[in-house]
């Protein structure tokens, strides 16, 4: 098992190296650059040159790549165009995204798995038909449109939820020292505020996932309940509950585990759109801003970060799989 993990980590490192080349050159091949703000008028030529020199953009691309990647290997992730550390910029935005991810992902599974399961157990029933219809609606709905509609309906028209931002403007910013102080002082107020701001973005992010995962669970469950061992379980005189939740469920979730992990890349894309729509100050929002301002350092770091997340999620899925399915052994 340990050998397997080590082997996979080595493989991942090689993949990351390849990806870093692609990320780097892709960005630099695109027209424009971080110093473009200074070429609006003739007077700023000197400033533009200064900017290019400071960021080392006049050097050949391979040399620039070398500086960048060797910096990473030394734990130096570079600076933003604004002069701040890339690492601290990202770390400041990360808790917001982690919060959004955890909450939406948790509820996505909590909703999707039972939905898919009951749909399979009542195949072709009224519930199943309605659910199938709804999930196709959910699957085909663009995230940005759903987000805008939710804002319009629940944020503006009914005004039940706040539109945008992570916390109210009169409250301290999430995950800062002031915020923790406020949390200790009045937990219901702070948690409630956070939750109210979280509802709409989380739903926006969840809908496609719920639709996809529940369809997958339905198919998997349908496959499992027609297996011979389910008939055996019934022939043993087990209660229907036991047959479904003990014998069918565990086998049905096996393929879902992979699905959940492989869904992560889609989720990264979802963050970018959702956070941008809701001006939710997370990593996705930071990503959009950095692209608009050609902030190479931040964009590259975020790309690397999501690549690592995807690779780790895959490894985690494989390990979980071995843990729940006794037939799978890594040695």
């Amino acid at each position, binding site marked *: 098992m340990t050998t397997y993990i080590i082997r996979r980590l080595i493989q991942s490192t090689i993949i990351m190296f390849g990806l870093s080349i692609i990320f780097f050159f892709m960005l630099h091949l695109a027209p424009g650059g971080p110093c473009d703000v200074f070429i609006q008028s003739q007077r700023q030529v000197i400033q533009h040159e200064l900017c290019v020199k400071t960021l080392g953009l006049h050097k050949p691309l391979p040399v620039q790549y070398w500086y960048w990647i060797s910096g990473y290997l030394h734990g130096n992730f570079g600076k933003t165009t604004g002069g701040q550390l890339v690492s601290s910029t990202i770390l400041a935005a990360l808790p917001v995204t982690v919060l959004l991810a955890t909450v939406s992902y948790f509820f996505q599974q909590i909703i999707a798995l039972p939905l898919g399961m009951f749909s399979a157990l009542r195949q072709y029933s009224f519930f199943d038909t309605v659910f199938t219809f709804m999930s196709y609606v959910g699957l085909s709905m663009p995230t940005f449109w759903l987000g805008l509609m939710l804002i319009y309906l629940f944020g503006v028209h009914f005004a039940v939820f706040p539109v945008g931002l992570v916390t109210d403007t009169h409250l301290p910013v999430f995950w800062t020292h002031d915020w923790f102080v406020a949390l200790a002082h009045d937990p219901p107020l702070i948690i409630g505020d956070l939750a109210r701001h979280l509802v709409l973005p989380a739903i926006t992010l969840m809908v496609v996932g719920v639709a996809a995962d529940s369809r997958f669970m339905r198919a998997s469950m349908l496959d499992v309940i027609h297996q*011979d*061992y389910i008939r055996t379980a019934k022939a043993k*005189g*087990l209660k229907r509950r036991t047959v479904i939740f003990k014998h069918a469920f565990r086998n049905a979730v096996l393929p879902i585990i992979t699905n959940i992990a492989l869904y992560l890349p889609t989720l990264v894309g979802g963050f970018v759109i959702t956070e941008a729509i809701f001006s939710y100050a997370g990593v996705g929002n930071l990503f959009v801003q950095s692209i608009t301002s050609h902030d190479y350092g931040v964009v590259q770091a975020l790309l690397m970060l999501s690549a690592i997340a995807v690779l780790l999620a895959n490894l985690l899925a494989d390990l979980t799989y071995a843990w729940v399915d*006794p037939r799978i052994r890594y040695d």
Partner: protein
Amino acid sequence: MSTEISQHELMQETHNGRLLRVEGLRTYFKTMDGIVKAVDGVSFDMPEGSSLGIVGESGCGKSVTSLSIMRLVERPGWIAGGRIWFHDKDLLHLPEEQMRQIRGDDISMVFQEPMTSLNPVYTLGDQVAEVVRVHRKVSRKEAMNRAIELFKLVGIPSPERRIKDYPHNMSGGMRQRVMIAMALANDPDLLILDEPTTALDVTIQAQILELVKDLQQRVNTAVMLITHDLGVVTEMSDRIIVMYAGRVVEDGDVLSVLKDPLHPYTKGLLASIPSLGKKNQRLNVIAGAVPNPLRMPQGCKFAPRCPYVMDVCRNEEPELLTQGEHGERKVRCWLY
């Protein structure tokens, strides 16, 4: 039909130790093209501790009959009629909860496919102990000990270690032993074996059959063996039922049926067993194929393939009638 039932009533008086009685069982399946009558009026009796072999080609309804007894017929199938008496309970009219308590306790079943009939994600010990615990109030440890005991009974070597194994660690023959252990866990009155050796190698087949035969004598369980192999029935059962197209066509004790088959279908089945001694002999086959279940012939279902076919056979279906002075044999054929 009326004569059929009266025959059963006669038999009931002679069999006081009756265990199971199937009366006019009909199990149908709904398909896109119409209703398939997989089992259409099957009747038979089983005394306590007896052994019965049900023989027939694929699709003749023998497996569906056994699933109907367990009430495990799944949609789109349903039991359309008939009665199944087990001791003095009418299984088809029992509430599901009571039926559940019978399954795996009083009646248990071993299926055809040992490779897929065990749950891949639980240990063998867990799966055997589970059937003990669902019907008996015992602790987890006691159930595990019972599992070890059962593994010994069915001849699984080093059972203490094997209970911790998963199905994929075992061969097909060993898995079938586990299935048998599971079926015997609560000392059932009736053990149904649905083609228990079809998926296994010949040598393993012999071992499993030997095991069942041995167990039958030791635990005094009535055994219903479903197979397409006449040789197996000869070895294992006292009585034989031959099924064709969802009906019983012949019913009698094994020796007399084999020595003197009455129904042309039984004759054909016996003739089609290749004999080892004779070389270069063409295999005897029953001409034609099983009728399409959606377009059953009007009269006798075997008429299109029968070498003795008469005009009456094509128009009217014969009933299952008693033959012989003592009423010990039954056949569904116009010849008698």
